């Protein structure tokens, strides 16, 4: 591109801005867009920062409360349970992703794998639903509409008022004109993204990687560029402002409303997942095949009993140097966890398969592409949630088994069996609170930036393909522009 051509492009872009500044509609639309993004960034940032702080505090509280429990029977502590909180990723101030739906904390207890809870979307009253106007939602869904409102007439206006022929007849090429209009729209994108970029940069202070921050800003820049190019394409190809607006409105509905739903429906249809009730019944059926960890006499543990008697060369369980009930509890927990983990892994694999099908729709809809890209880069995607579930489960299993170990080693079988005889026996069946120091610090970290980048590569490619195709189409139209 020659210097002369570049200066012409800038002249056209400046004039487009002059037109917008003198047009009340364009200015109003820009002001609304900027205000919406800005307010949403501020509100969501404050909200997420509070949430992050609260979760951090709650995690510490939960740990403190657990270790401050008095002397108890160790199995009571297994049922007393513990909480694992997921601290939000630094960039989730801009895109809470699936966190808002999946929940952010899990109650960890023996013999059960609980679902995550306290999902923001389930907690909100009708009034607080306004909270779902996240910066990501505004830029993904509303910003394209703003670009359409501002730019639908950028070229068609020139054609409709015959200034296009006049411009071209004076030696300005169609491509120069379109590039100038495109540059003006890019500057609007810059304005819309400015609050987002500033908030993203602020997240660096919370430990976010610069790579992730830049990828996040780049991703949204690419996404809005796709929309600017779509606006230019339709405005250049159609002869009337009304035609351009109608076509772009239809494209917005198709790409931002219809396609994401088609994507999720297709994913759910092509990779069917068992319902919760169905899964729960299947889990119960499998668990029934295992022994009851609370019942040391359960025949399911006969083999284990025989092995133990042989190992310690004794004739009965009360001669064992360890608490047989604790060993049964530990073995039962291990078997139960194995079964539960198998079901959990199956469910997670199904969810992943569904999400992979859904993400393929990014080739057909830039909205689907940016949604995937945003959540993957921020670390609020299903992959991160699954890692949280696995880490929380590992924590659960570890602390339950640690308590079972206390049960095995710190409480005699006789005291354990006599625990309900009288108050003194109950007291004797308790172990010292010093034994509750079994909790590992739970500090859930977002995935490494490199891993997040690798996961989001396909979404970047999807947006880039959109841009390449649109640029080719616009250049073709630009050559024939009249």
């Amino acid at each position, binding site marked *: 591109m020659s210097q002369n051509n570049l200066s012409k492009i800038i002249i056209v872009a400046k004039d487009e801005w002059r037109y917008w500044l003198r047009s009340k509609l364009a200015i109003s639309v820009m002001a609304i867009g900027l205000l919406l993004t800005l307010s949403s960034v501020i509100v969501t940032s404050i909200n997420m920062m509070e949430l992050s702080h609260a979760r951090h505090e709650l995690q510490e509280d939960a740990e403190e409360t657990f270790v401050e429990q008095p002397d108890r029977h160790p199995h009571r502590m297994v049922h007393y349970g513990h909480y694992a909180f997921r601290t939000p990723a630094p960039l989730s101030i801009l895109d809470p992703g699936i966190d808002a739906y999946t929940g952010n904390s899990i109650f960890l207890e023996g013999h059960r794998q609980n679902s995550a809870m306290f999902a923001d979307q389930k907690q909100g009253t009708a009034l607080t639903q306004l909270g779902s106007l996240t910066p990501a939602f505004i830029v993904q869904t509303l910003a394209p509409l703003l670009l359409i409102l501002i730019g639908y007439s950028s070229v068609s206006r020139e054609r409709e008022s*015959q*200034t296009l022929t006049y411009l071209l*007849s004076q030696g300005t090429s169609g491509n120069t004109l379109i590039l100038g209009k495109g540059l003006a729209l890019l500057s609007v994108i810059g304005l819309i993204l400015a609050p987002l970029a500033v908030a993203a940069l602020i997240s660096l202070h919370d430990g976010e990687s610069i790579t992730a921050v830049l990828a996040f800003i780049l991703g949204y820049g690419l996404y809005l560029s796709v929309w600017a190019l779509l606006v230019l394409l339709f405005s250049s190809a159609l002869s009337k402002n009304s035609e351009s607006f109608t076509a772009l409105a239809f494209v917005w509905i198709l790409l931002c409303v219809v396609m994401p739903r088609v994507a999720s429906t297709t994913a759910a249809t092509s990779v069917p997942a068992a319902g919760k009730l169905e899964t729960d019944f299947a889990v119960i059926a499998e668990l029934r095949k295992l022994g009851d960890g609370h019942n040391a006499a359960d025949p399911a543990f006969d083999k284990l009993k025989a092995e133990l008697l042989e190992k310690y060369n004794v004739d009965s369980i009360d001669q064992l140097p360890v608490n047989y009930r604790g060993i049964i509890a530990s073995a039962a927990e291990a078997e139960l966890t194995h079964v539960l983990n198998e079901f959990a892994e199956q469910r997670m694999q199904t969810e992943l398969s569904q999400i992979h099908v859904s993400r393929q729709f990014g080739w057909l809809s830039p909205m689907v592409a940016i949604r995937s890209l945003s959540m993957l880069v921020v670390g609020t995607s299903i992959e991160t949630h699954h890692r949280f579930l696995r880490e929380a489960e590992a924590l659960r299993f570890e602390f339950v088994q640690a308590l079972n170990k206390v049960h095995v080693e710190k409480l005699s079988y006789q005291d354990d069996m006599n625990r309900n005889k009288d108050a003194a026996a109950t007291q004797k069946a308790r172990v010292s609170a010093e034994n509750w120091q079994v909790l590992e610090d739970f500090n859930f970290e977002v995935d490494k930036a490199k891993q997040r980048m690798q996961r989001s590569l396909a979404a970047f490619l999807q947006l880039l393909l959109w841009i390449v195709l649109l640029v080719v189409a616009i250049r073709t139209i630009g050559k024939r522009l009249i």
Partner: protein
Amino acid sequence: MVTTDLSNALIKADSLCVSIKNKSILKNLSFHVDTGEIYALLGGNGAGKSTTLKTLLGFNTPSSGSVTIEGKEVNQALNFVRGKTAYLPESATLYSHLTARENVNYFLSLADIKKTDDEINQAFDRVALQADARDRHMQTYSKGMRQKTAIALAILREAPIFLLDEPTSGLDPVAIDEFNQLVRELASTGATILMVTHDVYGACQVANRIGLLRDGELVGEFAAAENSRIDTEQVHAAFAQRGTA
């Protein structure tokens, strides 16, 4: 009919055929316009007048024949041609959100031409655009005022060739007189003017030569006698004769 001497031709169409969407619009059209000449291409609706102008600007590609400006084939020298020509569409639509001065500055900057405010005012003076209107938004302008602005711009661009599409349609008689006077003045300074119009009287008043266009064909051509304009009756008669043939 006039004899053809092409030695001085600045604009030349030779057996020009143009089809748009498989419909033949111009059929073997041949004419030329000499330097400093005012040539009016006269015809009714759908005769191919605007197509002729757009072909001269390189917006249409001839299916056969040729069209040249200063000897250069239009479609092979688009930048050269567009740099030499000042085109005035039927409704000289400049940007209504800009003032006349802003419009002129915008188009000049796109053409990479720098002019001082004095030079711009001189051009406005030359086309008699009122001083108090020059910094007013053009949405308040009449068609005549818009044309004056467009011509002022063409003057500032120093384009030697003017292509005017129905320049007097929609103008009141006073504005038409002013416009014709301006066109003659431009021609007297060496500008070459090709105007297409369906206004027989207007064309006869201002043109040195008139070509009659019917269904994309040149059906007649008349030259004015020295120091006089074309005889309207003669043009009418030629059109009528051809129409009944």
